[in-house]
């Protein structure tokens, strides 16, 4: 009983001290703890080795930077895992915010809240060496003649239709693995991904993978921007936005991006 009282007092004192200084006080799921969600599993280069606690990987690093900016120490951060669909379903959330490359769209904002973007991505064309050799100079005209694929839940799926408008029906897949399987089985010639994913897939997953080029963010109608996903009407949103704004202004975000997504250079821009 005595020990219980001690713990109780200690935690009360702790949260009280925290409440004095911080925007997020009393707004998180668990007082004094920031619960962050990511994908299951989470991939390179977003999270290294599926271990966000290590702070290795772009999103892991961003998450800790934002947490620190919001006044949470590293050990006050806990991680949970969710699927993509789970997170945009209506209802209560088991996380304070969720980052797994959610593109911010007005339609999604009907159902959930997004923070300010922590990353703006160009879209890149993933293909194989043999197709890349055949295509040569990538122009929209040439790209129209290719057989296209994309992940069904990515914004790439709609962007292929809008920006390229290929001659043949686009084939869509459940996840990146299936897209790459189709690419390798020669069922599709090319697929559209955000640049970091495309880099990873061409380097690690697709045998003889190649990047045909990239569409700069301003080229697409909705440049793909990743935001942290929160429950609709989350009280925490202003605190997260404030933190991201501060990190953007200080150049810290660009620094993290350069560290983890440096491979994003050297891919030709498609005119």
């Amino acid at each position, binding site marked *: 009983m005595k020990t219980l009282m001690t713990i109780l007092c200690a935690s009360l004192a702790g949260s009280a001290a925290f409440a004095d200084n911080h925007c997020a006080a009393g707004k998180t799921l668990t007082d004094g703890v920031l619960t962050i969600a990511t994908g299951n599993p989470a991939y390179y280069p977003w999270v290294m080795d599926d271990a966000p606690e290590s702070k290795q990987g772009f999103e892991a690093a961003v998450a800790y930077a934002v947490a620190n900016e919001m006044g949470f120490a590293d050990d006050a951060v806990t991680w949970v895992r969710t699927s993509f669909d789970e997170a945009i379903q209506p209802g209560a959330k088991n996380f304070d915010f969720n980052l797994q490359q959610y593109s911010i769209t007005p339609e999604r904002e009907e159902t959930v809240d997004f923070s300010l973007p922590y990353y703006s991505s160009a879209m890149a064309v993933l293909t194989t060496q043999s197709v890349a050799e055949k295509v040569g100079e990538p122009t929209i005209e040439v790209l129209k003649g290719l057989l296209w694929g994309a992940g069904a*839940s990515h914004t790439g*799926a*709609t962007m292929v239709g809008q920006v390229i408008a290929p001659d043949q029906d686009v084939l*869509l897949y459940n996840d990146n693995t299936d897209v790459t399987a*189709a690419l390798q089985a*020669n*069922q*599709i010639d090319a697929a559209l991904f955000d640049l970091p994913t495309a880099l990873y897939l061409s380097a690690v997953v697709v045998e003889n993978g190649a990047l045909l080029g990239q569409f700069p963010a301003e080229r697409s109608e909705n440049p793909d921007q990743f935001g942290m996903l929160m429950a609709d009407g989350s009280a925490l949103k202003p605190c997260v936005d404030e933190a991201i704004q501060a990190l953007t202004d200080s150049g810290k975000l660009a620094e993290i991006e350069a560290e983890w997504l440096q491979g994003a250079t050297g891919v030709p821009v498609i005119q």
Partner: protein
Amino acid sequence: MTKADENPAMPGRRAQYEAALRRRSLWVAGVSTSLVFLAILVLVPLAPGWEAVKKSFFNWGVFSKTFPGLLDAFLLDIAIFSWCAPLIALLGLFVAICRDIQKPALYPLRLFATVYTDVFRGLPVILVIYLVGFGIPGLGLPRPWNSPYIWGSLALILVYAAYVAEVIRSGIGSIHKSQSSAALSLGLSNADTMRYVILPQALRNVLPANMNLVVALQKDVALLSFVGPVEIFRQAGVYKSLYASFTPYVGAAIIFLAITIPMTRFADHLMNKRRKQEQ
């Protein structure tokens, strides 16, 4: 002599009693059905998450924007269905006949048919679609022979033909031995006995069961989306990502039901007709 005999227009005691019973059960059924509907209409909107669910699943704006696109995508479902169904019927029939082959020289066919039905009835459809739809094109077939439309369809055909074969086989088993005795006694060959006497009756007997498989096939066509084709289920998924709304799935469900409910009713109708014939 009773009153009823003298005046046939007067219902008898039994008829009067049964009419009263019918009126009573109609009344009870009507009241209880209305109560249940009322409870749903009143209670569901009271649920704390109703507003959020309504916005996500029953969003009229999203519905009207996506429904035409869904209908368009459903044409692909119908196309896939219409080239799969006849091939399933043929393969199913072939396998069913192979399973009853007696000739020792053709034993490999029989063995093949048995293993085939065991394997493909034992596997989830989606697994077969993945394995066949990605696996076989992965062997390095040239275009257009590596098309997911071809191999995805083949996966559906393989699985459904296994079920159809079993249904037809049970139909063959349901034909009384005396029918084949009669045919054989006339000097007909085994093959002719099967073709002209047993199969026509067997197929007629299993028509309702096969209609149920047809309904199931119509739904499972959506699984082809896993290997690429953008049919209605996938199109709904794309809209879901685009609008962060589950309403397109509701739209797809409505389109599916518009097709499958009449089909199911028809299958039931056939089933009842058969049952009446057997009595």
